[in-house]
């Protein structure tokens, strides 16, 4: 009778091994859930590094252009005014379509260890939900007196690429690589504006500038604008 009771008891009671394994599983998945955001940020960083590697590789490939045939035309009696040999106009070459799936440029801020590619305004990846975003209407760094405007989130999310921008100070270096050329900027101005949906950019119109926009740290009502000038 006692043996039967003991057997019944052992069937009803959850075994210690089961409890321990359930506890271990809970701890394991709990750690995963708590660090999910951070793991996504790391995954994003890895993908970004790979994309940078790919875009570096693509830029190093030689682009073989169709060299136009140069034809020397015989001297035409009717065109006595022509001086020397005439060069035939080159044949129209078919331009390579621009691949917007690759980075258009790379933003680098050594002071905060940021190196991030950005897409052109025509790319579907040019979206603040996924990347550092180029604002439409921006000029590329090779445009004299132009202004390249980039924006991104700040905060704790894995897409907060401008999270550490608040650590920058006047005089810090910023680099933008575009079309195999590395442009060197110096930070000249930092100011806050109210978050109204519109941002006023105050810059020197005689200089080529770079503008970075992000939300102000610890202030949900403002945005911070960073103005850098090309050296």
């Amino acid at each position, binding site marked *: 009778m006692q043996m039967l009771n003991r057997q019944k008891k052992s069937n009803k009671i959850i*075994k*210690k*091994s089961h409890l321990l394994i359930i506890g*271990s*599983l809970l701890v394991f998945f709990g750690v995963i859930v708590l660090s999910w955001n951070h793991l996504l940020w790391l*995954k994003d960083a890895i993908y970004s590094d790979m994309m940078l590697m*790919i875009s570096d590789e693509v830029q190093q490939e030689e682009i073989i252009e169709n060299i136009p045939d140069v034809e020397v035309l015989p001297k035409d009696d009717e065109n006595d005014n022509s001086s020397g040999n005439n060069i035939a106009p080159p044949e129209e070459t078919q331009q390579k379509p621009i691949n917007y799936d690759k980075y258009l440029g790379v933003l680098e801020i050594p002071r905060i260890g940021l190196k991030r590619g950005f897409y052109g305004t025509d790319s579907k990846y040019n979206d603040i939900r996924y990347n550092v975003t180029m604002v439409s209407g921006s000029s590329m760094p090779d445009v004299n007196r132009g202004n390249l405007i980039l924006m991104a989130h700040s905060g704790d999310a894995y897409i907060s690429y401008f999270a550490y921008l608040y650590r920058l100070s006047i005089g810090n270096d910023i680099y933008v690589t575009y079309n195999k050329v590395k442009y060197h900027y110096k930070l000249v101005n930092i100011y806050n504006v109210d978050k109204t949906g519109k941002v006023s950019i105050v810059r020197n119109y005689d200089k080529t500038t770079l503008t970075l926009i992000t939300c102000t740290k610890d202030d949900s009502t403002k945005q911070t604008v960073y103005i850098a000038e090309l050296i």
Partner: protein
Amino acid sequence: MFMNFFEKLQIIFKYALSSFLGIELLILTLLFFILLGLNIKYKKKIINYFAIIVVGMFIVTVMVLNKDYVSYCIDFLLKGIMKYIYFPSTVIYFSIIFLITIFIVITVLSKKLTLFKKVINYLCFGILYFLFFSFISSVINSGVNLADKVQLYTNDLILAIVQISNFIFIVWSIYTAFWYLFKYFKRKYD
């Protein structure tokens, strides 16, 4: 920079005896070693617990004082592991397949594994082998250079095959680890 073993030892001893701090560290380490060594004979549990607490506190103190660097180290380690998961080199991928082959042999020959575990193993390994052969055939068809990571992973099919393979391998590894842990708990507590 190019020192032989004895020159390195010489430098370390010179440092250890050059300052009061160095001598102190050396004496404390020796005392700790003597204490634990003598405790093997006397078997006092309190000494063992004390030693564990001292070592633990030392590690925690160092970590707290250098928490930024510790967090950087953890990120670096995690990033390295995740890089091998998302964009492994072909050496790593082939090593995983080689490991899978060994596990298949163990599963086939093992008498201790339950039927359910064997079925799960055969299923996972079968899928991994299918993906591996698909990888080989797509590499040959597209003429991709196996040593060139960029060329390899700009091909969507190869990228998908490698990442799904790694995902299945990791899920199987986690399942196996917990299975063995459960067996251990059962043996010890039930």
